[in-house]
């Protein structure tokens, strides 16, 4: 668990439109890396390139290397389905499967991947994942109820439980709190702090305070203008970025002079 990722000269395209240019960075294991930047600068695009979700969009493609465990995720012969088993993802809007119960939602990743798994074993994994997502106490009495009946914050934690149930090495989160109220946001932030003991976590956030609060490393993306590709301006340890950034753009963005 908890792998390091080396990204080398990554260019990301939507058809002929280059959305992100030339990103290189190291993502450290057992740490939270936050990506910030103005809207449209390609944070989500970049994040989705890390587990090959990007290529689900027709005509989308990448150039460059994403190396995990000395293996380039984009090397020919690598099955994206396997990549995604190792690199999990949580989305901006909580999206539990509406036809499944809380239990089934958590078990979904396993059920969909493994032919046969014993009920008792599955029970164990579901409980463990829900505990890991700080949700067990709240839902243990209604595991059979539809997952979409939970509150927004609970749904988001359910999605996190679902993601960690398949035991990935890396967890990507795209603005996981932006649809939540402050109390739920707190709960998720606490959870992230716990999860980083075991996972490599990359999180995209619009909220600089959140980045400052939870992350160990912060990367700042920016964009020249509409139609220009986004690029990584700088990445460093979070305290450094927020106190003494190298680039004036970073400083301006962080101090709220734009964005």
């Amino acid at each position: 668990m908890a792998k390091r990722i080396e990204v080398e000269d990554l260019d990301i395209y939507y058809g002929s439109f280059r959305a992100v240019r030339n990103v290189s960075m190291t993502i450290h294991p057992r740490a939270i890396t936050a990506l910030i930047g103005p809207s449209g600068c390609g944070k989500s695009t970049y994040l989705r390139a890390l587990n090959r979700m990007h290529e689900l969009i027709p005509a989308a493609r990448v150039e460059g290397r994403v190396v995990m465990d000395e293996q380039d995720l984009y090397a020919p012969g690598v099955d994206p389905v396997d990549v995604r088993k190792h690199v999990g993802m949580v989305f901006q809007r909580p999206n539990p499967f509406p036809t499944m119960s809380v239990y089934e939602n958590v078990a979904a990743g396993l059920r969909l991947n493994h032919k046969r798994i014993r009920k008792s074993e599955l029970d164990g994994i579901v409980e463990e994942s829900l505990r890991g997502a700080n949700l067990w106490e709240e839902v243990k009495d209604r595991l059979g109820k539809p997952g979409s009946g939970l509150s927004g914050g609970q749904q988001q934690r359910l999605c996190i439980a679902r993601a960690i149930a398949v035991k990935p090495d890396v967890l990507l989160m795209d603005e996981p709190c932006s649809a939540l109220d402050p109390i739920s946001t707190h709960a998720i932030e606490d959870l992230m702090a716990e999860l980083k003991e075991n996972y490599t976590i990359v999180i995209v956030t619009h909220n600089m305070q959140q980045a400052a609060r939870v992350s160990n490393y912060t990367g700042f993306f920016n964009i020249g203008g509409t139609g220009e590709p986004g690029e990584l301006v700088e990445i460093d340890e979070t305290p450094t970025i927020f106190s003494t950034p190298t680039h004036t753009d970073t400083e301006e963005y962080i101090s709220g002079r734009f964005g």
Partner: protein
Amino acid sequence: MSTPTKSRPAPPETDPPGDSTRLVRGSLPRRASWGALGAATLVAAVVAALTGFSVTLFVLLVVVLYTAGMYVWSRSAEGRRKAADRAFTSVVTSAFLIALTPLISVVITVISRGAERFDGKFFSYSMRGVVGDGGGAYHAITGTLITSGLATLMSVPIGLATAVYLVEYGRGRLAKSITFFVDVMTGIPSIVAGLFAYALFTLVFGAGTINGFAGAVALSVLMIPIVVRSSEEMIKLVPDDLREAAFALGTPKWKVILRVVLPTAVAGISTGVTLAIARVVGETAPLLIATGTTASTNFNPFSGQMATLSVFSYYEYASPGVPPEPYLARAWTAALTLMLIVMVLNLVARSISLFFAPKTRS
């Protein structure tokens, strides 16, 4: 709550007085529309009575008078735009009511004429050995269920798979031409479908192969495009969110489709499928040719002719014996039965979709 208004420096200059906003205009009293409707009805009744009463004329008059009346009244009191809005509301509502009249009329006609033979015997007897009075449509009901059931068994997998292909895989020429030709297929006249099935079975199984299965093939030709269309729409409605969530768990595409996409869309799909069944269950022309008819009950769709409700109804109506009354009564009751089957199918579809519908609140 804090102090939203505490003392503050002089606010920016205020507006010059007199430039007041006019928000309240003249408006019609609240019961205006009922009053106008009453007046329109009254006038229409008088006119209709004077010119010789006709329901159609009366209804049309009410609609026109009410719409025009409201428009003129509202226009003088509330202005042109409000008046147009009111008039359009009345037009839209009457259009809807007008569209309902044929349905009600059809239902009343079929029920009132079909009630006579709507008895136990009708549902338990075939026409074997029956002349004139008596007999029933048991053989036709089972035949209808068998042929439509078989057609469903063939059409749903093919139609659903095609819809999956179009939404989840289809790009480029093949997908485009399938989309186009599915549209064309919806336009195949039902009788041509029957002729096609008849010719096909003659070709493959030899002359005179007329059976329930041939009818089911003809019905499938009519049913598949409907299933494709409706399933396609429903699968498209499944949010990409869910697909992505499943992909992100490391799920291969076929499982994403089978385990996440289709279950989420199943409510809509089942509604579409039932509507498609309802659409073909009453087909006459193709069954006339491909399935034939018999007076006896035949449970074997692969051998021998088979009676179906629509064909039964048609023949009872088209070539009655002497006296014709019992034949015509059976024809209408068969039609009524068909309509009931369609209605039950619709109810089933609704229950299925309620049952399977993604649960949003517990």
